[in-house]
């Protein structure tokens, strides 16, 4: 009962927030609704009993990734509305709708699950973080280390890409325009 209420509440909220994310013209609205939708998705993980995944979703996605987006938005002009020219929006909506319909049909098709057996079944008597740790550090140790190396490479790449010529302001042109306007007004 409560599971159903929570599921439908979270799904309606998530779909609405992600629609705002995708359809909004303002980057700031889009980013905030994306962060809120990720919080709702962590709610799904808690319903599903994946406690550790929900906490990781909250910390990594809502905490780190969205904070990174928020920092990056300081470089861009976020308050301005995004101007996009969409030549044929009807085609895009038709294609997207057809893909959505196809995905729903694919996912709701009966799954032949009799042959599926759990390779790493959940350990009885262990809580979710304990069993996640047991599986992650035994069966998935090498992918874990590879993911760590990948994160290190990504961090170095991000620092090198973003840190080049950091002393020059990105909004120099806007500043010069603004100073020109101010000086013209002073002349008047």
């Amino acid at each position, binding site marked *: 009962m409560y599971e159903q209420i929570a599921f439908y509440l979270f799904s309606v909220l998530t*779909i609405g927030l992600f629609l705002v994310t995708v359809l909004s013209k303002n980057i700031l609205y889009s980013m905030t609704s994306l962060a809120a*939708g990720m919080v709702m998705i962590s709610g799904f993980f808690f319903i599903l009993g994946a406690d550790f*995944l929900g906490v990781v979703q909250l910390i990594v*996605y809502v905490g780190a*990734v969205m904070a*990174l987006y928020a920092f990056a938005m300081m470089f861009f002009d976020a308050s301005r509305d995004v101007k996009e020219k969409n030549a044929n929006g009807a085609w895009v909506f038709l294609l997207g709708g057809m893909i959505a319909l196809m995905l729903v049909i694919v996912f709701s098709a009966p799954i032949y699950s009799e042959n599926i057996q*759990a390779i790493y079944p*959940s350990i009885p008597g262990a809580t979710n973080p304990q069993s996640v740790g047991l599986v992650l550090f035994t069966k998935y140790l090498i992918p874990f280390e590879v993911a760590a190396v990948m994160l290190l490479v990504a961090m170095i790449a991000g620092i090198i890409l*973003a840190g080049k010529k950091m002393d020059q302001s*990105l909004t120099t042109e806007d500043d010069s325009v603004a100073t020109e306007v101010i000086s013209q007004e002073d002349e008047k």
Partner: protein
Amino acid sequence: MIGLNHYLILSGLLFAIGLVGVVRRKNLLMLFFATEVMLNAANIAFAATSHYYGDLTGQMFAFFIVAVAASEVAVGLGLLIVLYKKHGSLDLDGLSTMKG
């Protein structure tokens, strides 16, 4: 009772929303947001299958998807900043400099 199909349909809907965003938007930052939506939809599907089959592999894949998304954001935002310095905008049409 909420079954696996409910979660899979929800995941498919969210993935379609992200896909519409990827196809429709022309701003690169908005494309990144749509990509995040798609990754989250995949995460929901993985967690749901993991729960309903009593298998932890789905949660492991979801963790690695989170790691991939984090590194993607780090590299992608660096590239976006370089692009913004070069072009002054994040428009996707501005990238077609090699157009013949």
